[in-house]
């Protein structure tokens, strides 16, 4: 049974966005093994949707269920972990291990340090090396993965992340992407981002939000088949994808579209040879 948002809407009642319907009739389903990408420009409602799915906000319309239960139900406790933007700014402990173990310790798990080490290994931070280090001395990519480990250590079935790669360099982004791909073995992952390009190869489902509503919802193949609604939401397909779509449009036969430059070059050269 999935984490399910059905036709949810949300209007902020107080503060600066009072009266603005931030999310309007949005449906999302996430199962273990899924990587759902929620894309949209600033103000499209994507962070609000993430908070609704995490049970931090209560929808004004529609419903959220966690494996069939209401988000507040006892059965749903601990099912969802959320990673906010720039989570590494929330480090507080002297060592990374004790920082990551904070969540499981609060949940009174029997072995919080063991949970922490397993989570660190999952994000490819060798526990023996990184566990004793200060979280404040890590590089950007290491710190981000350490903070994600803090969410993983809670053992949630659903992992929701807000802009998990923002501000990271190429190596840091690759490492985060690999950690999330590995995490899918045991979790359903939702990534909210204004820069979804790097997740398109991995995504099981893509949702584009514009002005709080769904502009596009479908698989990557459907997205590449007709990107007009996605582009209409202020989002752009990566140029390497557009090259392949343009080539297809000109009659080249490409079995699949990929973000990998070498694979794309091989396929394009083969298709070009074949069309002569």
């Amino acid at each position, binding site marked *: 049974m999935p984490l399910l948002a059905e036709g949810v809407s949300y209007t902020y009642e107080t503060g600066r966005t009072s009266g603005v319907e931030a999310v309007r009739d949005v449906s999302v389903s996430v199962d273990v093994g899924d990587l759902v990408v929620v894309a949209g420009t600033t103000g499209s409602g994507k962070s609000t949707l993430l908070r609704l799915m995490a049970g931090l906000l209560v929808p004004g319309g529609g419903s959220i269920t966690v494996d069939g239960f209401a988000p507040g139900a006892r059965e749903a406790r601990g099912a969802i972990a959320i990673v906010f933007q720039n989570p590494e700014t929330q480090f507080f402990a002297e060592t990374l291990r004790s920082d990551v173990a904070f969540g499981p310790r609060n949940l009174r798990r029997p072995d919080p340090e063991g949970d922490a080490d397993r989570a660190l290994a999952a994000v490819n931070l060798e526990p023996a090396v990184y566990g004793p280090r200060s979280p404040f001395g890590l*590089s*950007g990519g290491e710190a981000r993965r350490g903070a994600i480990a803090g969410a993983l250590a809670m053992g949630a079935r659903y992992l929701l992340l807000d802009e998990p790669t923002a501000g990271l*360099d190429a190596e840091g982004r690759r490492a985060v992407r690999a950690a999330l791909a590995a995490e899918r073995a045991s979790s359903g992952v939702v990534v909210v981002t204004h820069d979804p390009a790097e997740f398109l190869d991995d995504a099981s489902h893509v949702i584009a939000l514009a002005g709080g509503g769904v502009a596009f919802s479908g698989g990557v193949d459907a997205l590449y088949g007709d990107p007009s609604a996605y582009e209409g939401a202020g989002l752009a397909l990566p140029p*390497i994808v557009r090259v392949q779509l343009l080539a297809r449009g000109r009659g080249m036969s490409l079995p699949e579209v990929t973000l990998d430059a070498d694979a794309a070059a091989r396929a394009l050269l083969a298709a070009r040879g074949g069309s002569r």
Partner: protein
Amino acid sequence: MVVFENVGFKYPGARAAALEGVSVSVRPGRLVALLGPNGSGKSTLARLGNALLSPTSGRVTVDGMDTADDGAIWDIRARVGFIQQNPENQIVGTIAEEDVAFGPENLGVSPAEIRVRVDEALEAVGLSGFQRREPHMLSEGQKQRLAIAGALAMRPAYLIADEPTAMLDPVGRSDVLKALRGLRSQGVGVLHVTHHLEDVLDADRVLVLSAGTVVFDGTPGGLVSDPARAIDLGIELPAEVLLADALRHGGVRVPAGYPSAEEIAEALCRS
């Protein structure tokens, strides 16, 4: 001119130096890009440029004034504007024009002159008409442009921008890049620190830092035309540049440099 001469910097208590032997200068009207992975020393260099830090070896001068000279710090900061990654951290006013006026007010500029500068600065970043807007009602890209306007109202000769687009969506990013280009054409010298080579393809000069030292000093074209070298240097080239390179090796006549998706597709079908 902002001149870094053989500059080194070591944070107190750190084992390794954050920067070593870095030399570069930023002239008025020029755009110098500083690239490198996280932890390579980019932000440290940026902070040395407007006397937020003083070098532990070598020296940094701004139009001849040494940043290590405490007496010159305020003159230096009036000449070198600084904006950083997170727009939220650099806005102080309750409405846009108040925020932009904060710098010149502190310099003791007359109210009439401040009025002129605020309007000019907002216009320069494409925020004319936003004078009375509350900063929290702006998009992230608009906030970052407001921060640039705040720096501009000081009438700086130079602007150091430390990853100004890192937290912005594609629209915000392109607007901020446009604003920075506008400054260059008005004669401001810009030092743009970034992870993204795509952001600085029109830079006059590109420096790549790795572990605190300069490992590349040249033009953006020098990196784009030699993908293997760029990757060695830890610079991520956009996938379409790598694709174009691989297609060229496969005999497709893709235009050199930084071709668009349309140009690559065109070349594929033509040759």
